[in-house]
């Protein structure tokens, strides 16, 4: 069953196109295969009266090292749909990009704004087909003609819908705040504060979440992607420029060897001028 919105229907089963390439690359790296960057993360979403608020931290980790201090985990899918991604950074990035492309094609083909359920179904189909090999835990939020929606899609392809959700390594911390503070039909300010507090709990209690907090508010009127919404209180004072003045390194000896060049061939090519 080919979807009208994708360029070509996916082949059945796993796609092992890169398996041979990966095997060869392993040889090149001398046993030091670069570890995948994970967004050990806290992401959360809340449905409020007029729309959906999504929130995420901005730390991307590669084992114990912070690979990116200002990583963007709230991805654009459509003008009315945004997606937070937890799990393997590359997987969430590429999966959401693929989804966004497909939905754009659909919009152009049909002249309609995409619906959140459509995005969810496409993601579910794709992630289920890969049986968890694509490590992407996503929270999709959006506003469409059918209302305000919030869904989560797991790496194995399971879908859940709730008025408030949290995913990532800091999800338990965030969920504690959400369970306590969520009420139906919140006002915008309360909803933003709830999501901020939830992500903050993740940032404080989970080592793999941290740095700043991003918020994205989706309503019928439009999108407000605030990056960062809250800046980390632990700002480092390092300068990003490491420019050393002349003379910092002492010169002990200097040896000048002129390189002899001889003219082997000389050709003149006339330039056409008109």
């Amino acid at each position, binding site marked *: 069953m080919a979807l009208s919105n994708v360029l070509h229907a996916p082949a059945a089963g796993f796609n092992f196109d890169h398996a041979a390439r990966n095997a060869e690359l392993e040889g090149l790296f001398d046993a030091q295969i670069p570890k995948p960057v994970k967004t050990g993360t806290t992401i959360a979403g809340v449905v409020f009266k007029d729309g959906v608020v999504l929130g995420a931290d901005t730390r991307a980790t590669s084992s114990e090292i912070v690979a990116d201090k200002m990583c963007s985990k709230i991805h654009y899918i459509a003008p009315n749909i945004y997606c937070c991604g937890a799990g393997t950074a590359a997987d969430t990035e590429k999966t959401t990009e693929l989804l966004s492309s497909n939905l754009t094609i659909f919009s152009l083909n049909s002249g309609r704004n995409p619906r959140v359920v459509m995005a969810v179904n496409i993601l579910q189909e794709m992630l289920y087909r890969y049986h968890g090999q694509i490590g992407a835990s996503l929270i999709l939020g959006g506003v469409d003609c059918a209302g305000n929606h919030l869904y989560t899609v797991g790496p*194995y392809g399971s879908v859940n819908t709730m008025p408030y959700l949290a995913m990532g390594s800091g999800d338990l911390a965030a969920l504690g705040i959400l369970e306590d503070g969520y009420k139906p039909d919140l006002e915008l300010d309360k909803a933003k504060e709830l999501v901020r507090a939830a992500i903050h709990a993740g940032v404080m209690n989970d080592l793999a979440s941290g740095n700043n907090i991003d918020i994205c508010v989706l309503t019928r009127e439009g999108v407000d992607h605030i990056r960062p919404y809250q800046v980390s209180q632990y700002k480092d004072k390092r300068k990003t420029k490491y420019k050393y003045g002349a003379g910092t390194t002492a010169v002990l000896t200097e040896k000048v060897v002129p390189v002899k060049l001889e003219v082997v061939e000389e050709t003149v090519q006339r330039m056409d001028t008109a």
Partner: protein
Amino acid sequence: MEQTRVPPPGKRLKRVVSPVSLYPSKPLCLSDRLSLRAYIANRVTDKLTPIHDRIFCCRSGSAADTQAIADVVTYQLGFHSIELDEPPLVETAANLFRASCYRYREELTAGILVAGWDRRKGGQVYCVPIGGMLVRQPVSVGGSGSSYIYGFMDSNYKPNMTKDQCLELTAAAVSLAMERDGSSGGVVRLASISKDGVERRVILGNQLPKYSTH
């Protein structure tokens, strides 16, 4: 004596949730591949999935697998029903589930109860456990919590109970299983399917019948 509705209790939520090592569903234990922790991914999942107007399925096992299978069967059954220009039979739906569950038995972890009403045989319950068997039963239980209530169901089910008796029996059974099974909990969802339609009910945590005195 033929209750017109007759969803044998088997049909109501007696499935109580899913096994520990698999994926999230209602109050379900998730074993994260990376950390092996027990985590409830969703404490209010709806595991009663409509397949057609008068046919539901109760899902247990891997959430991803059962959602995928249910979607496929919904499509196949809908197509079949349109071709026939008739409401589909519950037995047909059950066979479609069995076909998928058996063919892909190595890859799937799905225990499904198919239940509904059709004109030919009235209310029916079919059990499609892991492995892809298909058997029709008057009463059936499934999921990780089902072990705790086999005795309860065996001793308390009687043929030709009324709808309310059935609902009460099912709610009691699920509550008892939730009491004992760590992977089950949250709310109890009930659906009563008959010629006249589907009635859905939710029993919240604080409204459940209480059994423990200590």
